[in-house]
């Protein structure tokens, strides 16, 4: 059974903290994505990676960075968390853009 796992389901952080969200997939996919999901806005792409050490900005990269040191792992970093980054964060992977994206269960991050 294919799987995308995320390090935390719920996370509460304070303003200004550095936050790491980890995502691991076991399908040997080249492409991995980080989205944030807010009511009425659907899924908005933060960053994606199409290979190890490769990354591309999505639609809303400001305030975020990413790391992909190994094929199976894609990390999202909030350098200095702010309250407007309170959201649901979803990681996904796919073998090809035309094919299915497999999603993790999400991390609900609250920044106070």
């Amino acid at each position, binding site marked *: 059974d294919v799987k995308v796992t995320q390090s935390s389901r719920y996370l509460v952080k304070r303003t200004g903290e550095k936050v790491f969200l980890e995502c691991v997939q076991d399908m040997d996919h080249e*492409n991995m994505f980080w989205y944030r999901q807010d009511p009425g806005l659907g899924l908005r792409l933060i960053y994606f990676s199409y290979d190890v050490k490769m990354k591309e900005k999505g639609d809303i990269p400001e305030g975020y960075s990413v790391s992909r040191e190994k094929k199976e792992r894609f990390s999202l970093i909030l350098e200095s968390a702010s309250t407007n980054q309170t959201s649901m964060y979803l990681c996904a992977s796919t073998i090809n853009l035309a094919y299915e994206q497999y999603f993790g269960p999400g991390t609900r991050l609250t920044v106070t």
Partner: protein
Amino acid sequence: TQLLEQSPQFLSIQEGENLTVYCNSSSVFSSLQWYRQEPGEGPVLLVTVVTGGEVKKLKRLTFQFGDARKDSSLHITAAQPGDTGLYLCAGEPQTGANNLFFGTGTRLTVIP
């Protein structure tokens, strides 16, 4: 950004009723995917449509891709409580981008 607008944003219906969800854009897509997301989980792929005018059926769900490949619809016949969830469309751009563009989402509640 290639915008995909979904309507309605919220839909609450009685069990046994029929419904249609729309996904519209001014952009042309190579393919379009529909996902369903249940509370506490990531989105899961329902179907991919590729050809303009294509109609796909998945039990009580009927998906249609517009002739011009700019829009799509999802029709559910005799809705059941198990259909409750967030429905998302996602378009694969014709050229350029290396990621899907997700719609704004339709939250469906089917009341027993």
